[in-house]
């Protein structure tokens, strides 16, 4: 049996799937440049992968979801907050943050906020639409938050690094509506939630989701995803070092 590491065809497939490390990818690129048969295989794989993006994503029928919830004895989960509920929570947040109670939104709230950040990410995964505004253009996403959240999010372009911007949504963290950006990585989603006055947890894993938090310019950021922790750390590093314009 030929070992996978020796079979150039298997390596070309792995190359197209982004599974080769940089050194092996480079070595294979040289081989493909010399061998037109390998280059042709690469073109066919890319063509097939493109064709497969035409397949309709099969959404689980709503009746199935209801059946499963009955099976495990769950009630229907609460719907996403409506705009009137969000407006009410804005009012509440203003009352809370205007008084001496501000101090409770400090580090003590961190655990609760982390839970809420993870909860918001999970809820968005379950929603038909993963974001309130769908756009890969940061000049569309950023202004969308005007008048909806107190802060405007820091939006950076990481498409070239494999993390395209997909959109944004509003989450309610410690009773305050805050902006969350949604980035993609292959089929994974990454939420970046921005808060103020809540100290983030540096790194935590819960229910298989990783959260990495950091503070910058008086604001707190939380990146949540089911990506591997190494990939998420890489994303956070890119996000923090990417240039922002406006």
């Amino acid at each position, binding site marked *: 049996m030929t070992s996978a590491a020796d079979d150039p065809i*298997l390596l070309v497939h792995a190359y197209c*799937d982004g599974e080769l490390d940089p050194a092996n990818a480079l070595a294979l690129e040289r081989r493909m440049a010399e061998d037109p048969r390998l280059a042709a295989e690469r073109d066919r794989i890319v063509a*097939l992968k493109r064709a497969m993006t*035409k*397949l309709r994503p099969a959404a*689980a029928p709503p009746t199935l979801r209801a059946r499963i919830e009955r*099976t*495990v004895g769950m009630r229907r989960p609460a719907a996403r907050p409506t705009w009137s509920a969000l407006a009410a929570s804005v009012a509440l947040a203003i009352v809370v943050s205007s008084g001496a109670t501000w101090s409770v939104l400090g580090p003590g709230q961190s655990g609760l906020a982390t839970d809420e950040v993870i909860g918001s990410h999970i809820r968005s995964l379950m929603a038909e639409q993963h974001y309130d505004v769908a756009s890969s253009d940061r000049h569309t996403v950023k202004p969308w938050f005007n008048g909806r959240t107190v802060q405007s999010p820091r939006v950076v372009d990481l498409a070239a690094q494999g993390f395209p911007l997909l959109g944004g949504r509003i989450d309610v963290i410690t009773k305050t509506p805050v902006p969350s950006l949604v980035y993609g990585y292959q089929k994974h989603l990454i939420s970046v939630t921005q808060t103020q006055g809540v100290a983030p947890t540096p790194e935590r894993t819960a229910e*298989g989701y990783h959260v990495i938090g950091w503070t910058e310019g008086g604001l707190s950021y939380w990146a949540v995803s*089911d990506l591997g922790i190494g990939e998420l750390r890489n994303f956070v590093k890119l996000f923090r070092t990417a240039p922002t314009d406006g």
Partner: protein
Amino acid sequence: MSDERTRFANVVLPHLGDAYALARWLARNDSDAEDIVQEACLRAFRGIAGFGDINPRGWVLSIVRNTAYTWLKKHRDPKVVAVDNVEDVERAGADWDLGPASPEAALIEQADVARLEAAIAALPVEFRETLVLRDVEGLDYRTIAEVTGVPIGTVMSRLARARRRLMAQLGKD
């Protein structure tokens, strides 16, 4: 809600769409896929207390996959599921035909959804599940190896063979 139900809601429910998609590709039938996902969710719910901090999607998909195999063996002709000669084909080693008759990339890319779905449905189930986990569900090789319980080398071999069959099929005029 109890702890188990909360965990189930957090770990399993977000991946219901992916679970259904995989079940549909394995069963090739919508209503069977629903039964499989319901059964898998019940298994996941019973096992939720033991769920560690591993990739939730991979965990859910591996339960769906195992449930689908059990279900298909029980409800359908066992021969449909047991493709014994697949491993023999894999062991035969590299016999890739890269001759001038190989299909054109452009022709493959133009394939419409109906032809593509029919070609995927015609693959042996081991090839089909590997292809679907990679190119529909977007899992990496290591997670596919964990979900399907085979070494990464086998994942690579199955994926390449699945794709080559599709290419040959779609590349025909």
